[in-house]
Every structure is written in C-alpha cells, then in structure tokens.
C-alpha cells in the first residue's frame, strides 16, 4: 500500500492530465463544482491548513475572473441592470462564475501536481520520450546549485583581494557584474571540461539508457486501468453532448440522462481516487502505530 505520490510518475501524470483535461474541455456546471471541490479538498488533504497565501491569491483571482466576464461580454437575454450604457446580463455572470470555477479548480490541481511531480519524476517521463533531452535537463538542474556555490566562492575571493566595497552602490554593482562575468566564463569552461570527461568515458558510443528508478507494479497498473475506464465514461458523456450546457442566448440544458449521470459519477470517483488512497494509507499507518 503506497500513498499517491509514491506511484509511478506516468500513472500520476495520466491522472492529472485526465482530471484537468476533462475540467478544461467541458463546461457543465455540476462537473465544474465537482472538480473545484475535489481539487481544493485534495490540496488541503496534502498540505493541511498551510499555504494561506496561495488560497487567498486563488480566491481573489476567482472573484476577478467571475466579475470580468459580465463586464466585457454582453450576450444573454436576462438583463440584470445597465452599467455605462452596457447591459450586465445574468447569463454572462453565470458564465463568468463557471469559467472562474474551472480555472481555479485546475490551478489548485496544478499546484498539487507541481508539488507531487518532482524533477526526478519528470526526468523519468521525459527520459521515456527523449533520453538526450532529459540528460540536458538534469544537467541544467545540477548546474543551478553549483553556480550559486561558485558565485559565493568568487565573491569571497574578490572581497579578499579588496576589489570592491559594499558601501558604495556603483562599486557594488560593478563588483557584482564582475562576479557574474567571471562566473559565466567559469561555467562555460567547466561545461566543456564536463563534456570532455563525459566523452572520454564513452558517452554517445552506445544507445542512451536511463536509470529506471520507478517500476510498474500491480497497483500502478490497477490505478491506471481504473483511471482510463472512468476517463472514458466521462469523455463519452462529454463527447456525446449528454453533458451540454448552453449559456447564451439564454440558459438551456437537458437534465442529464443515464450517460450524463454516469459521466458525472465517474468524474467524481476519478477525482476521489488519490484521496481514497491517502485516507486508506493514513488509517493503515495509524492502525500499525496503535498495534505497536
């Protein structure tokens, strides 16, 4: 039993793409509500009540996005009131709220995605597409901390030689840019040395292979299959217009038929899957702790 973030990166990525994809390509209000609620719950489940700034930013953005549409778009039959000779309509307001719910839901999901999908996991995925690119990416990642350490060293050396003072702003800027210049030259030279030593060790002679840190286990495959089945049910519902919702010129929709209801249920289940996993894992953990 593993928690969701320990699953194979491909499985995690597929889940995120299916959940956000459906949310982005469907405008059915109930589906938006499910996706927003699920995304927020998932985020809070993983982070507790921290990240207050993120929440505030997202909900302010929600308000801005929801209000932007009725002020810009004047489609719709039901006029609520007139502002600057422009009608503000009920339909445009509801459409704005709907769009905002979609965007904020997806943003929450993506925030979780950024937390879960660490660089090593992404390298595993890009490595499957192009080992060479993934190598360049992983080298660049390794260079970032290396460069900052090297900058500190150069800075210390320059200061020791008395080449600039901190108290004079012009001197300071000149010193900083000198450090940067030294750093870049060193970085390029060091890169060449790295490349040469890679070549002497036989880089590029055979096929690029990759260290496989992640395997597909039975639970990965099960999760992926469930994901795809639920996704196809929802996609079928969206694709056959069972979940169609017209905002303009006036709101019109059919109450969802069998397929539409199934699609909504499948989507709800899809977004709940990782949360179910987390809950089970947490309970198991508590149970094992209490057994000790």
């Amino acid at each position: 039993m593993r928690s969701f973030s320990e699953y194979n990166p491909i499985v995690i990525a597929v889940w995120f793409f299916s959940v956000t994809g459906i949310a982005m390509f469907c405008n059915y209000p109930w589906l938006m509500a499910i996706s927003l609620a699920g995304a927020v719950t998932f985020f809070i489940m993983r982070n507790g009540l921290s990240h207050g700034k993120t929440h505030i930013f997202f909900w302010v953005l929600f308000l801005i996005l929801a209000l932007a549409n009725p002020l810009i778009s004047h489609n719709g039959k039901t006029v609520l009131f007139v502002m600057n000779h422009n009608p503000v309509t009920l339909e445009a307001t509801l459409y704005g709220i709907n769009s905002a719910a979609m965007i904020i839901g997806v943003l929450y999901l993506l925030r979780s995605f950024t937390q879960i999908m660490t660089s090593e996991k992404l390298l595993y995925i890009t490595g499957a597409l192009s080992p060479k690119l993934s190598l360049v990416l992983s080298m660049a990642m390794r260079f970032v901390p290396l460069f900052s350490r090297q900058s500190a060293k150069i800075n210390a050396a320059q200061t020791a030689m008395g080449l600039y003072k901190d108290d004079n702003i012009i001197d300071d800027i000149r010193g900083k840019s000198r450090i940067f210049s030294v750093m870049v030259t060193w970085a390029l030279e060091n890169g060449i040395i790295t490349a040469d030593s890679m070549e002497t060790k036989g880089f590029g002679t055979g096929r690029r292979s990759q260290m496989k840190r992640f395997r597909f286990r039975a639970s990965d495959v099960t999760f992926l299959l469930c994901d795809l089945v639920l996704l196809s049910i929802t996609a079928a519902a969206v694709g056959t217009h069972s979940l169609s919702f017209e905002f303009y010129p006036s709101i019109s929709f059919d109450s969802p038929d069998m397929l539409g209801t199934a699609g909504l249920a499948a989507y709800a289940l899809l977004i709940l899957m990782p949360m179910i996993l987390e809950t089970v894992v947490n309970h198991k953990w508590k149970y094992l702790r209490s057994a000790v």
Partner: protein
Amino acid sequence: MLLIRNKNLRNTIKIAVPFVIIPVITILGTLAFDEKKHIIIALAVAVLALLLFAAGFEKKSTGTRRMVIVAVMTALCFAGRFIPFLKPVAALTIITALYLGGEAGFLVGSLSAILSNFYFGQGPWTAFQMLAWGLIGLFAGMLSKPLLKSRALLLIYGFIAGIGYSFFMDIWTVLWYNEGFSVKLYAAALVSAIPYTVSYAVSNVLFLYLLALPFGEKLQRIKVKYGV
C-alpha cells in the same frame, strides 16, 4: 524526422513544420471540432511542435560539448528568472541562438520554461511558454547574420520578441477562459497585461544591451577555443 540525409531537404522540413504542418492541423481541427474547442487544438499544436523538435534532437548526433553548453545556458536562464520585474530568459535565449544557432536557442528557451516552472508552477501554459521562448530562439538563430551585424536591429528584435511573447501568452489566456476566441476578451487581456508586456520588452532590450557583447565574447571564445 531527421533520418533524412539530404541537408537541404532537412532544412526545408525544419521550416515547413512550424509554417505549414501546424496551420494545416489548426484548420483541420477547426473543421473537426465545433468552434468552442480551440483550446484543444492550441494545446495539440504546441505539444506536437515540441515533440517534433524533441524527436529531431534525439535522432541527431549533437556534440557533447554543445549539449553541455546548452545545459549551462538553461541553468543561467533559470537563475535569471528570480530577478524581480526583469526577465532575462528571452535575452539569454536570443544570445545563445546568435552564437550557437537556432536549434540551441530553441532548446535553451523551451528547457528554461520547463525547468523554471518546477519552481513557478507547471501547467498547460508550460507548453505554450516552451513554444514561445523556443520560437524566439529559433527565429533569432535564423536571423543571426543581420542581428550580429547591427546592434540596433538586435535591440529591436528583443523588443518585438518581448511584445510578441506577451501577445502569444494572452491568446492562451483567452482560450482558457472562454473556450472560443473572442476579440473583446483578448483586448481586455492585453490591456491587463500591459505592465508585464512592458516588463518583457524593457528587460529584453536592457539585457540584450548589457549582456549581448560580454556574453557574445565568451561564447565566441568557447567556439574558437574548443570548436563547439
């Protein structure tokens, strides 16, 4: 894509992909889906362009030295994104493209986007950012001769690239918010993004002005010394 031996043909394809194949997909997509699903087409085009490029890069035997230099420049771009208000990414991408060619420029731009978004947040916009910065590098590589000759032209290119990047990203914003493309919303998005647009354009011009020569010297030196 790059299994083709003939160099001329290869260059033709390189140009044909962004200018011919992608518009064809766009038109087919508009015919196949109803007009509300522009975002699917836009995403598909962006991802496809990136995949084509990745496949081409994978097939080619790029020198190790060149690859490492690309990684170095990408890391510098990533570090540069932490500077408040000013964004040196596009400028560094352009400089790389001038001295190492369009492909290296495309790589530095697109890899910087993916790398820095680990910190700034990944999302569907990652693909568009990768494409936008990548294309800024690719075009700079194509225009490298005139841009290297005249400094004024280089600064103008940087300015246009900054504004173009902002306009490109706003197309994506509108598509995301509104399913279809609406000129009114686009105008509103452009207006609300003016501070960013100005910051992109100004920082491109500023960094190109400040960094083009010293960076150019360094890259030129590496090229002459090691034959990258």
